[in-house]
């Protein structure tokens, strides 16, 4: 089904590739044999109705899925340079080292309570042992600029991260993820808890982020996928139905189920 896109993707080096990836919650098989390839510096949207496994899928890409009780993963996820033979599920690979390369932004803004705006951004580096003040200052500013938050918070970096508005908190979380310089950034419905203006700001910044990082974004909002992504995958009941250039998927889907979904006949 995905063959035409995969061949396209072959030309650009893949930032991430999954091979026959499966995930379970106990006995519940929620991700079923997904193989897809994400080219470098893409914004790759994952769309599909609720419960189709797209969130679980991206939680497998930074080995976070396994942190849930009873969760299980089978298959390969290849990220160049992240592990031996690039497979992050190869035996002996430390999930911690993978998560440094694959950042994540969650559905609800979740800044660390009790930490200042500055520390929320710097904490990833600080706990990795980087303590030089000038380096941290630099990274904090760069990351907050990348997340389009610098101008709003530069005078109150010592205030708690939780004192910001919801939209600002989410951009803080993006800055926090960017501060550790990930190769890939996973975003799990990052705007679903936000108002339209905050959503627009985050969409703008995601488009800009493309230059620095490969983005995989799960979204319920098809307009959002159309606005910000250059490639889209459609998930249904844990399976990958179709992938392709976003324009193609939205104007000329090959699978009737994709067409039904994007025209609003279910989901």
């Amino acid at each position, binding site marked *: 089904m995905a063959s035409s896109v995969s061949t396209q993707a072959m030309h650009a080096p893949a930032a991430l590739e999954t091979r026959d990836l499966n995930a379970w919650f106990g006995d519940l098989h929620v991700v079923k044999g997904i193989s897809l390839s994400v080219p470098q510096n893409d914004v790759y949207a994952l769309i599909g109705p609720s419960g189709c496994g797209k969130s679980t899928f991206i939680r497998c890409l930074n080995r976070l899925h396994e942190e849930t009780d009873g969760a299980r993963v089978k298959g390969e996820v290849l990220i160049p340079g992240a592990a031996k033979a690039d497979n992050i599920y190869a035996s002996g690979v430390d999930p911690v080292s993978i998560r440094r390369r694959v950042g994540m932004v969650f559905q609800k803004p979740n800044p660390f309570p*009790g930490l200042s705006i500055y520390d929320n951004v710097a904490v990833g580096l600080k706990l990795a042992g980087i303590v030089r003040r000038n380096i941290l200052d630099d990274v904090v500013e760069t990351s907050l600029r990348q997340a389009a938050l610098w101008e709003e918070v530069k005078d109150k970096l010592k205030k708690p991260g939780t004192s910001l508005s919801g939209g600002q908190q989410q951009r803080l979380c993006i800055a926090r993820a960017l501060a550790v310089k990930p190769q890939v950034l996973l975003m799990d419905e990052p705007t679903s808890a936000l108002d339209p203006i905050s959503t627009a700001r985050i969409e703008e910044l995601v488009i800009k982020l493309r230059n620095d990082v490969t983005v995989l974004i799960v979204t319920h909002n098809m307009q959002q996928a159309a606005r910000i992504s250059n490639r889209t995958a459609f998930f249904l009941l844990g399976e990958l139905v179709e992938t392709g250039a976003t324009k193609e998927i939205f104007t000329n889907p090959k699978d009737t189920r994709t067409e039904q979904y994007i025209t609003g006949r279910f989901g």
Partner: protein
Amino acid sequence: MKNMKLSAKDRSRKIYNQIWLGVLCLLAFAAIMPLFFIFAYLLVRGWAGLSLSFFTEIPKPVGEVGGGMANAISGSLVLMALAAILGVPLGITCGMTLVELRKSSTAKFLRVAIDLLTSVPSIVVGLFAYALVVVPMKGYSAWAGGFALAIVMVPIVARSTEEILKLVPRSIHEAGLALGIPRWKVLVRLILPGVKTGVTTGVLLALARVSGETAPLLFTAFSNSFGFRGLSSPTASLPVQIYTYATSHDETWRQLAWTGALVLVFVVFCLNLLTRILMRRT
């Protein structure tokens, strides 16, 4: 006619309501009466002996007038500090382990064990500390007393830490993990600082609890009448001193016991008040 009848019924219902409300208030009042009686009685009997010398002087021999409980006060402070140093890190670690292991069978086992430890009579804890510390050290000591009190503190601190940590949303844990921070660092460096007021509250409650413990100290820290002489010597404490003096035949000593009880209750009261204030702030 019909209306009249109804209103008569209404009236009797109102009277019944008043009566039962009165009974309930009385019973509720009766339940907390002991607290007021204790306070009032301690104030009446203890106030007379309250003076600077009570806090600064050591007890005088039987028959002599004057003296204070400086030995017991300093000893209690030492014992509580020792208990906190030994018990708090252990209790907090235990609470964190419970949260981290969540529903695993190890966590279930630990939880039952901790609840059992909470209900072990404190005199038994004292015996345990006697066998484990006093016998090998060949003598009563502050170490032994602090150790016994620490055992009483651990389960209280562990369970309160667990409850507080459970209130932290899972998404905060995940945010830390997703940054490539190891699990233990997420807990110690990111989650714990966010709930430090809550954890402190648990620690203070545990301290309030052990500040009045007598039984575990009777044959561990024992007592002395000359003040603190080092961690390896017998050490006096307010509860044990009160116990000894209250049962003595010397009038001056009995007065010291009353005043000591007043001071002890006041300290516990203050610790409880402090936890309330902290809790309201969170």
